[in-house]
């Protein structure tokens, strides 16, 4: 039960934070990216607040032998900068700029503008499948 309750609580708090911070409104996200126009710095405050809290969480994590409600930690440990990392992130930024949506707000917006958000989420999942298919044949 805890294995479901922790992610459900995390997702719910995450979605609440996105909505409260205005990140479920694509215009506000595009306003942040509109650095050379009518710039809206709000997203910087959202990311700053989240990073500050998470920096403390990483300090706590360093003192834990295992998570509170799971057997062990499963965390990324890579540090290599690859073309795949940079190219993929560059592509992601283009899509983010076009729609003003990234994956989190895409799912959260299902509660706000279901049709538009569902179109975005479905296309995003299709894009993920494309990568999976290409890599499956590589």
């Amino acid at each position, binding site marked *: 039960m805890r294995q*479901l309750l*922790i*992610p459900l*609580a995390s*997702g*719910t708090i*995450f*979605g609440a*934070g*996105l909505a*409260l*911070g205005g990140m*479920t409104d694509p215009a506000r996200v595009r306003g942040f990216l509109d650095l050379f126009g009518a710039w809206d710095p*709000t997203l910087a*405050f959202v*990311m*700053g*607040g*989240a990073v500050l*809290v*998470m920096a403390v*969480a*990483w300090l706590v994590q360093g003192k834990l032998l*295992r998570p*509170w409600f*799971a057997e062990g*930690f499963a965390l990324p440990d*890579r540090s*290599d900068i690859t073309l795949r*990392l940079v190219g*993929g992130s*560059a*592509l*992601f*930024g*283009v*899509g*983010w*700029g076009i*729609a003003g*949506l*990234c*994956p989190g707000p*895409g*799912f*959260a917006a*299902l*509660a706000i*503008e279901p049709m538009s*958000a569902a*179109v975005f989420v*479905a*296309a995003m*999942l*299709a*894009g*993920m*499948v494309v*990568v*999976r298919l290409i890599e499956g044949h590589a």
Partner: protein
Amino acid sequence: MSLLAISLPGFPDSTPVAGLAGGVLIGLAAALMLLGSGRIAGVSGIAARAFGIGAGSMPRLGAWAFLIGLPLGALIVMSMTGAAEPSFAGPVPLIIAGLIVGIGTRLGGGCTSGHGVCGMSRLSQRSLVATATFIATGIATVAIMNAWL
């Protein structure tokens, strides 16, 4: 609610207090996932895991629970603060953007949550590079669209 509507001088559309409060909630959510379940709250990776597109150590039901929570949390906030009027792009740009976001986040190994929040706060070099890259191309994309469309 008036506190949440405060804007920065010179930036009439900004809502820094609401933004910071939302950011703290997102940080707490990611912290709960890290310290409670021992995992990264990266939405693109969790979505891929839930839909069986990518491998991952997170139990699939847990991935679904997280995803279901996202709109649930947004709904709770909207019911308290009143719904804003979000301005979504039309279906064609949404499809193009969605495809690119799906491909890019799988190749890049994360999005705004995994790299931007969880990785940057850990000073992961990969996440710092990824975040700087997607913010730069995002800014360039909006600038080009505003100039030419």
